């Protein structure tokens, strides 16, 4: 494949799921059960294309930063709106991630959604969702990014609220949508600041503008603000604190949807966005991002400790892992952050699909026993599923290991990189920044603990209920995706060395982009070697001159593979690599050991712990009271505002409207009288006059020919005398 083919094929990859959407939405009722097969086949084709494109990009054109085009969409006055699509290395990898997971979810759903009333519609929405996400992936400008961003929002709304007959599901859909809107507002403001300043939506134009030293409103703080605004979009989509509340509720959607949303599409969009525009974040913005990511990772990990709903645990785990990714990007660990996004996509999709498998089996068992009241998602109703569902258990266990960060898994590689990055960051910046690695390690430990708690309670031990006893392993379309995804979580796909990914192809391909931000506003350790010394020399005066303005992306992989580090941060990360690895292994190991001690061997009583730390337990169980907090502040505040507005509407606005209507009515009354008596009078007068004339003139119509002749003759006479 040549370079020219990459973009047309990418466009095709983008449009194929839309085809699936159109077919299923318009002909779904005719297709019925076939629509699943159609959707899955179409996605299979899409996957094939995506693999071809991504492979071409990575193997043949890996050193070219981005293959892209740009064209003028339309112009507003003299302002041309330039858009385009582009494939860089992260987009190429994301293409595979999105299409493969989407394909597997399609496959999985053929069994899972069997018998659902809106089966074809489900496939239509899945197609739309995939389409929207692919649009984000191949966008190379803020405008397309935003358009598809909103499309992802609406398709997530449709899918989360898919079972809208259930009140909680439709509420969850709304919650997801509205929470996302808050973030999107920030995103939009950020885009507008940049567009206003640089006059273009294209990433490359914006970065070039920033590196040439032009600041929004001539104020470097505004660049930070713009970065944070754009990051707000990512906060919404990637469920970062404090906008994370929608994600656990989104579990109301069908489980395959959860897998799609939480692994490949929606939440990945936020992280992907941050990675895409990484070059424009200033040091302050990055710090903000790192702090938000750390808080998210920590808080959601603590919440996940006590949840009893199978999917809720996974949901908070997702939030926590997204926090890790964002944190990693925030501290400057671009490659590891994105790496974690990819590895996490596989094993989180596997976890959710496994959860779906378990729930599906529980449902069937309940149906079999005519039980309709037990919660099929409560882990306390499960137990011993290892015996009844061996394949689900095996894959689940393996991906749990991956999520906990145990060697030989991909999760170990990426998480270890992130933790090392945080340590390097803290070491380089010092001071309170050490909190970040501390919280990160704690969260990593908790991750291992709650994942094994989930595994042990749900799968190990004896059957806790009759239902669990009657569960059966599911059919191939459910098991196969699990196996594939678990397989994808092996270390070998990313690096031949199971404990160090930095020599693998992934790290060679995904290179941290050179920051476009002038050196004065960027961490010196994130600048490339050439630029960094200049900062030392000129200090505060470091401006546009030191930073190469031509192309901020001219970094090639060649320099990296020779062992020459791009910047000081990477060097430092490498130094901390083994220490972080040891620490994380220790912490994860102890977390796992603790989980076994409490839930498997019951060395420590869970109940006693619960009563002992009653306060903490309730706090975690109630999700830090975030929903209640929002309920009493944001929502209640909104209600108060809307109530007062409603009062204002009822009494002031309506009063004005009523007043004007009274005035109008009065005026109308007067006009009516005028109409009745003057105008109608005139009309009647004319009519009566005509009638009168007619009644007189009709006498002339005698019906006698001769009298007519007389009149004719009179007329002729008059004419004759008139003319002569």
């Amino acid at each position, binding site marked *: 494949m040549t370079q020219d083919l990459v973009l047309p094929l990418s466009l095709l990859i983008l449009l194929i799921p839309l085809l699936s959407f159109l077919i299923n939405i318009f002909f779904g009722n005719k297709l019925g059960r076939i629509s699943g097969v159609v959707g899955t086949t179409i996605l299979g084709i899409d996957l094939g294309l995506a693999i071809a494109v991504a492979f071409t990009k990575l193997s043949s054109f890996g050193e070219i930063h981005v293959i892209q085009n740009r064209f003028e969409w339309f112009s507003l006055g003299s302002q041309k709106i330039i858009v385009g699509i582009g494939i860089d290395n992260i987009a190429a990898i994301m293409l595979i991630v999105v299409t493969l997971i989407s394909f597997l979810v399609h496959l999985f759903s053929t069994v899972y959604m069997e018998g659902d009333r809106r089966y074809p519609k489900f496939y239509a929405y899945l197609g739309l969702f995939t389409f929207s996400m692919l649009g984000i992936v191949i966008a190379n400008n803020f405008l397309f990014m935003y358009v598809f961003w909103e499309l992802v929002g609406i398709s997530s709304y449709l899918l989360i609220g898919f079972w809208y007959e259930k009140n909680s599901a439709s509420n969850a859909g709304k919650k997801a949508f509205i929470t996302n809107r808050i973030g999107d507002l920030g995103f939009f403001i950020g885009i507008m600041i940049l567009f206003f300043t640089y006059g273009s939506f294209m990433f490359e134009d914006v970065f070039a503008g920033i590196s040439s030293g032009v600041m929004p409103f001539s104020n470097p703080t505004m660049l930070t603000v713009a970065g944070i605004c754009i990051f707000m979009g990512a906060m919404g989509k990637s469920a970062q604190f404090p906008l994370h509340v929608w994600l656990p509720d989104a579990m109301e959607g069908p489980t395959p949807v959860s897998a799609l949303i939480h692994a490949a599409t929606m939440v990945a969009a936020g992280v992907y966005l941050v990675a895409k525009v990484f070059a424009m974040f200033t040091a302050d913005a990055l710090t903000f991002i790192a702090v938000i990511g750390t808080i998210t990772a920590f808080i959601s990990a603590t919440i996940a400790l006590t949840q009893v709903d199978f999917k809720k645990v996974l949901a908070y785990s997702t939030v926590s892992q997204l926090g890790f990714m964002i944190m990693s990007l925030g501290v400057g660990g671009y490659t590891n952050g994105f790496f974690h996004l990819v590895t996490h996509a596989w094993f989180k999709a596997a976890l959710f699909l496994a959860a779906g498998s378990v729930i599906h089996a529980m449902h069937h068992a309940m149906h079999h026993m005519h039980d309709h009241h037990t919660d099929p998602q409560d882990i306390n109703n499960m137990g011993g599923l290892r015996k009844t569902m061996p394949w689900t258990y095996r894959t689940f266990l393996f991906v749990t290991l991956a999520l906990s960060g145990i060697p030989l898994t991909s999760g170990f590689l990426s998480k270890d990189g992130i933790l090392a990055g945080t340590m390097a960051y803290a070491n380089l910046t010092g001071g309170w920044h050490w909190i970040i690695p501390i919280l990160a390690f704690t969260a990593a430990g908790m991750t291992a603990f709650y994942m094994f708690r989930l595994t042990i309670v749900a799968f190990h031990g004896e059957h806790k209920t009759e239902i669990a006893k009657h569960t059966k392993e599911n059919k191939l379309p459910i098991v196969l995706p699990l196996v594939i995804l678990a397989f994808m979580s092996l270390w070998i796909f990313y690096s031949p060395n199971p404990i160090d990914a930095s020599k693998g192809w992934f790290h060679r391909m995904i290179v941290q982009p050179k920051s476009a931000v002038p050196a004065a506003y960027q961490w010196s350790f994130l600048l490339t070697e050439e630029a960094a010394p200049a900062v030392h020399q000129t200090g505060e005066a470091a401006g546009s001159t030191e930073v190469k303005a031509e192309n901020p992306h001219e970094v090639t992989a060649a320099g990296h593979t020779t062992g020459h580090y791009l910047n000081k941060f990477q060097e430092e990360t490498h130094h901390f690599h083994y220490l972080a690895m040891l620490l994380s292994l220790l912490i994860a190991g102890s977390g796992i050991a603790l989980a076994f001690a409490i839930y498997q061997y019951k060395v420590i009583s869970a109940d006693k712990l619960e009563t002992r730390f009653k306060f903490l337990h309730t706090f975690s169980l109630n999700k830090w009271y975030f929903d209640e907090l929002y309920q009493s502040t944001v929502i209640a505040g909104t209600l108060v505002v809307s109530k007062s507005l409603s009062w204002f509407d009822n009494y002031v606005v309506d009063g004005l409207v009523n007043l004007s209507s009274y005035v109008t009515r009065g005026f109308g009354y007067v006009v009516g009288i005028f109409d009745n008596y003057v105008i109608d009078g005139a009309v009647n007068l004319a009519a009566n006059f005509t009638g009168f004339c007619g009644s007189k003139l009709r006498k002339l*119509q*005698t019906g*006698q*020919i*001769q009298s007519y002749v*007389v009149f004719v003759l009179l007329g002729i006479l008059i004419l004759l005398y008139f003319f002569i």
Partner: protein
Amino acid sequence: MEIGLTHYLVISAILFSLGLYGIITRKHAIMVLMGLELVLNAANINFIAFARYGGMNIEGHIAAIFVIILAAAEAAIALAIVLNIYQNFRHVNVDEVDNLKG
């Protein structure tokens, strides 16, 4: 006095007026028709006279011929109508046939 155009015109004028008088005053439908024939003939005299004194044009004759054709057709139709009236009213007095009276 040499007989000229005016003489003929005067004769046609008198004949025309006589025809009119017949049309207006007679009750019998056929009498009305006869008056009409007089009027048409008066017009024909005019045509021929003008043709004769206007350089012996053939056009005047042609017009007269068409008038005669029309008169024949008119007489046929009118008599048919008169017969119809007679069948319906048992008389042919035109001043009593006034069903279109306003």
